[in-house]
C-alpha cells in the first residue's frame, strides 16, 4: 500500500495506463466521501479481460458506490477510473460504453421488449434489418425468443431479468456491471439464473463486475471474489481459495459458516503451535509462521471439517470433549450445536443411512487434524486493504 501511495505520481499513472491496456477495468486509489464520511477508501481493482469478478460484502460496505463510480453516476473524491485503457474520470455515463443490470432491472415500462433492447443501439448506425437481427440473436441467447412484441409488465420476474440482461449485452459492452441482479427473484429462480448468467458469461467472455451480498452467488459465478468491508477490499482470491484460506475473521464468517476460537499462543514447536482458549487448547499447523508465542490468535474452523466421535477409539491431533445441545436435521445434512465449556461449536455432518444421528445431551469428542483450523487476522489489523 505504501509503495502505491509513493508511486501515486507520474510514474504511477504510466504503469497504471500500460497495464490497463490489457485489463478491462482499473480502479486506482479510489476514494469517496459522503458528508465527510469515508465510504470508499483507497480502493484498487484491476480486472483482466473476460474475467468475472465479484464484489462481495454486507450492505453499506461501499460496493454499490464503487459500481456507481464506475458507471459515472457519481464522481470520486480521489483516484482514477481507467476503462478500456483510458482515463474515464471525466466521462459522462453515456460515453463509457458499459452494459449494466440494476437490482430493479429498470426496464422501460412504456416500451416493448424489442424497443427496450434496441434502446442502446440508436447511435450505432445500424439498419433496421441489422437491429432486428441483433435483437433476435439476443433474445435467443437469453432464451426468450418470440417475446419482442410484449411489454415488460406482461412478463414474469425471471423473464424481465433476462430482458434487462439482453439490453445490457446487445451493445457489446467492454465491461458489464451487474448490481445485485438476482436479489429480486425467488430462491429457485435465482439458482437457475446464477447458472444461466455463468453460461452467458462463458459464451460471450465479457469482462463482468458483479456486486452482491449473497455468498452463494459469489461462489457459484465468479472467477475471483473480492470481499469488501467498510469501504475497503479485505481479500481477493478465487472462490475456492477464499473459502479455504480466508485472511480475516470477517471473510471467514461472511463466506460460509465458521467456528471462531480466540486464544493465546502457548507454545511453538516444529510446525505445531498450541493455542490456548478459555475453554480448551487447539493444535494448529502454522506453516507460514504467522503466530508468535504469547501473542493473540484467532482461529476459524469450518463446521464440515469437524468429526463427532462417540467411541473414544479414534485419535486425532485435536480431540475436544463437548456436549450436544441441539440437533437440526436439514435433509442433505445435519447441523449439531455443541458446547465445550463456554464455547458454542457448530458441526455439519452428512446423514448416513445406517446410523441414526447423535442425540441431544450426549457426551462426545470433537476430532479435527491440526491442519484444519484457519489462522485469521483480526478485522482491525487488516486496515490497509488489499489491491485486486
Amino acid at each position, binding site marked *: 500500500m505504501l509503495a502505491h501511495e509513493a508511486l501515486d505520481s507520474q510514474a504511477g499513472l504510466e504503469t497504471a495506463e500500460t497495464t490497463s491496456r490489457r485489463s478491462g477495468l482499473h480502479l486506482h486509489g479510489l476514494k469517496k466521501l459522503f458528508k465527510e464520511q469515508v465510504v470508499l477508501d483507497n480502493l484498487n481493482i484491476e480486472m483482466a479481460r473476460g474475467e468475472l469478478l465479484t464484489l462481495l460484502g454486507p450492505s453499506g460496505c461501499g460496493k454499490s458506490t464503487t459500481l456507481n463510480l464506475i458507471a459515472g453516476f457519481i464522481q470520486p473524491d480521489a483516484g482514477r477510473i481507467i476503462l478500456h485503457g483510458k482515463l474515464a474520470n471525466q466521462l459522462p455515463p453515456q460515453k463509457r460504453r*458499459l452494459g449494466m443490470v440494476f437490482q430493479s432491472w429498470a426496464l422501460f415500462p*412504456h416500451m416493448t421488449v424489442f424497443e427496450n433492447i434496441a*434502446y442502446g443501439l440508436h447511435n450505432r448506425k445500424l439498419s433496421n434489418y441489422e437491429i432486428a437481427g441483433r435483437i433476435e440473436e439476443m433474445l435467443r441467447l437469453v432464451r426468450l425468443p418470440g417475446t419482442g412484441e410484449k411489454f*415488460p*409488465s*406482461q412478463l414474469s420476474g425471471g423473464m424481465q431479468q433476462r430482458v434487462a440482461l439482453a439490453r445490457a449485452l446487445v451493445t457489446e459492452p467492454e465491461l458489464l456491471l451487474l448490481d445485485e441482479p438476482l436479489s429480486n427473484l425467488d430462491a429457485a429462480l435465482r439458482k437457475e439464473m446464477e447458472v444461466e448468467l455463468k453460461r452467458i458469461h462463458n459464451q460471450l467472455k465479457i469482462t463482468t463486475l458483479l456486486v452482491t451480498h449473497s455468498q452463494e452467488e459469489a461462489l457459484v459465478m465468479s472467477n475471483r471474489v473480492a470481499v469488501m468491508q467498510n469501504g475497503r477490499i479485505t481479500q481477493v482470491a478465487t472462490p475456492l481459495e477464499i473459502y479455504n484460506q480466508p485472511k480475516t475473521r470477517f471473510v471467514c464468517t461472511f463466506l460460509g459458516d465458521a467456528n471462531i476460537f480466540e486464544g493465546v499462543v502457548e507454545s511453538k514447536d516444529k510446525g505445531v503451535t498450541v493455542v490456548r482458549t478459555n475453554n480448551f487448547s487447539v493444535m494448529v499447523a502454522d506453516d507460514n509462521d504467522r503466530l508468535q508465542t504469547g501473542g493473540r490468535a484467532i482461529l476459524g474452523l469450518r463446521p464440515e471439517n469437524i468429526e463427532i466421535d462417540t467411541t473414544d477409539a479414534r485419535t486425532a491431533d485435536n480431540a475436544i470433549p463437548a456436549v450436544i445441545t441441539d440437533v437440526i436435521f436439514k435433509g442433505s445434512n445435519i447441523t449439531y450445536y455443541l458446547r465445550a465449556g463456554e464455547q458454542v461449536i457448530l458441526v455439519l455432518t452428512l446423514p448416513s443411512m445406517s446410523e441414526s444421528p447423535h442425540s441431544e445431551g450426549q457426551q462426545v469428542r470433537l476430532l479435527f487434524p491440526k491442519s484444519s483450523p484457519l489462522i485469521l487476522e483480526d478485522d482491525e489489523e487488516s486496515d490497509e486493504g488489499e489491491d485486486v
Partner: protein
Amino acid sequence: MSDLSPAIDQAATPIQELRARPTQWGALVAPMLVLVFIFFVIPILYLLRMSFAEQAFAKSVVPIFGVYSLENFAEIFGDIFFLDMIVNSLIVGTGTVVATLLISYPIAYYLTLTRGWERTLILVACLLPLFVNIIVAVLGWYILLLPFGVIQNMLSALGLIDGPLGALKSFWALITVLTYEHIPFAVLILAASLQNISPDKINMARVLGSGVYRTFLTIVLPLTMPGVVATVILVFALSISSYLVPALITGQQVMVLPIAIFSYTSYLLNWTLAAAISLILLVIVAGITFGLTILANRLTRRGEWEIV
C-alpha cells in the same frame, strides 16, 4: 372447533367479503350517488332542456312538451360574434395550458431533484398563492398591469416603451393571470408524476448512451404523460370556464364564454341562449378531455403496458 373456522375465514378479509357482495359494496357509494344526482345530473338535464327551448320562453319557466327547437344554436353558429367568442375562449384556454406547462414542468422537475430546505421553499412558494383569495391576487395583478401601473412605469423608465401599455385589456393579461392561478396545481400534479420515475430508469438510459435530451424525450416525458394530460385537462377546464379572472382583468374587452353566459343571464335576460352557450362550453371541455386522454393513451400505448 368446526363451527369456529368459517367465522375466522370470513373475518380475515373484510374487503374480499364486500367484493363478494356487491349490494353492500354499493351501499357505501349510494349517498355519493344521491348527492351527484341532485346537484349535478338534475341541473345538467335542466340546462340541456333549456338550451333546446324556443327563445319565446327565454324569460319564463319552460313547459315540458312541444317547445323545443335548434333556434338558440342556429343563432350562435350563425353569428360571427358568437363564433369569435368561442375562438377567444379556446385561445385563452390553450394559451394558459401551454404557458402553465412550460413554467411548471421545469419547476416540478427541479423539485424532484432537491431535498431539504430548498424543496420546502419551492413547495411553500407553490402552495402559498392558494391561500390567497383569487380576488385579492387578481387585484395585485390589476395594479401591476394597469395603464400607468407598475409594469408600464417600469418599462417606460427603462425606455423600452413609449406611451401607455395596452396590457391590461389584452389576451396576454388574461393568460398571464390564469397561468399564475393554475401553476400550483400543475406543479403538484407534475411533481407527483415525476417522482414516480425511478432514478434507475434515467441512469439506465444514460448508460445505454442517451444524452440529456434523448433521455428526456424517450423516458421522462412518456412516463410523465399521465401527469401532463391530467394537468392539461385540469388547467384547460378551469381556465376556459373561469369567470372571475376575465371579469376583473379584461371585462368585455376579451369576450369569452363565461362572460357572455353571465351577460345573457343577468342583464340581457335571455336564459335559453345562455343555456345553449353553457352547453357549448360543456361540450368543448368534455370533448377536449376525452380527446386528449385517448390521444395520449394511443401515443404512449398506455393501455397495453400499464398494470391497472
